[in-house]
């Protein structure tokens, strides 16, 4: 099924470049969003803390002001 998609894309690249450009952009954006959400879910599932860290630049900013 994935190979069918790639072959269809190759057909588009030769016959309809504009549609191929849009397909490339949408595929990459779609995959990016899907992977980002999936990985976030995996992190939550394994209980890996992502929002806990020290913003050292805030200390620096307060020192500056």
């Amino acid at each position, binding site marked *: 099924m994935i190979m069918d998609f*790639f072959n269809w894309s190759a057909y588009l690249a030769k016959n309809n*470049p504009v549609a191929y450009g*849009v397909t490339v952009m949408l595929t*990459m954006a779609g*995959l990016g969003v899907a992977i980002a959400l999936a990985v976030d879910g995996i992190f939550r599932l394994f209980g890996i803390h992502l929002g806990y860290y020290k913003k050292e*630049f805030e200390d620096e900013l307060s020192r500056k002001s």
Partner: protein
Amino acid sequence: MVHMPVSGVEMAWWPLVLIGFCVGVIGGYFGIGGAFMVTPSLNIFGFPMAYAVGTDQAHLAGKSIVATFRHWRFGHVSYVIAFTFIIGTFAGVEVGAQIIMWLTKKGIAGPVVRWIYIVLLFGLAAWMFYDYFSSLARAKKTGKELTDKVGTALSDWVQNKLNVPPMVYCGIAKIRVSAWAVVFIACLTGLVAGVLGVGGGFFRVPCMVYVLGMPTKIAVGTDLFEIVMSGAYGGLSYGMKGAVEIMGATLMLCGAAIGAQIGTLTTKYVYGFFIRLMLAITVFLSGTSVAIKQIGWFYERTYSTTVSAFLKQAGMKSQEITNLLQSKDKAYHYIVEVMNRPDLYAAYSTNYILTQISQFIMLGSAIGLACFLMYLCFRGMARERQSRLMEAKAKEVKV
């Protein structure tokens, strides 16, 4: 081996995943696209050059979404700066593209671009090394820990003296700057990116830090958000020209998605100043690679005109000549056996070796840096886990 349906080449899948992974780690950590590392690395593994740039641009959009999402969760993305930057970047890239077309017509695009690259990369690396080591010396004197330095004399001037309306306020970085200053910097970095034919993240992040006075990690996250936009545009543009190998881009994205998680997570465990030091090293290695390529050009110009003229006479087109000169065996056949010019082949051979060295420096530094960043990430995670366990134990003892 997999068959790439658009370009028609057969190649192994793992180099694409490996390159994607390494650049994902580096990009997520520095907030750069890493095109200057990807293109030569792809070429080493036999990916056709004609598709290398477009495929890299396409995968960049997806990879940057993954990395930006993670930075957004950390609170590293300033949308107001990013959107203001995008306006200037697109304008700058367009002007840069026009300049490069003019240089191409004059036939001097290659060497001019490389000289700009060399001056820019070494200049930037020298400044960043100076900034790091002078701050380190100051920190040693005062006994304070070196974490992140916010602002320079230039950024103080931009923030306090250059009050030309409209002003933009970046809540995350807590800075107020003139929108014109942001657009100007974006135009400048876009211009450089357009002339060099790269995304320009390696130049944009230091500009955000040193000129606008943004904290390093926010500069990294904000630049990645901007790369999402420019990568999507690049993917569309190159796709419309048929210069994207979608299967290759997907394989690279698979590796980059994992790499980007490690790269962005690493920013959690290191100080902003350390990110700057690592970026300086990367920029220096890139400069070295381009300088070696430029030395190769001095050899290239001794044979390229004569060989190209001969092959054109034999009925070959420019693209065929370029492809032929990428194969050492074919070049030997034509230059030595057909043209009977071993002197030209010696120059070709030297240039070929220097190009290979230049490409291997980029590939080696990409893999080396990715490994080191992975080590930092896993060490940070282990330490965090250990401290959480100790906290839990201490609570238990209290109860």
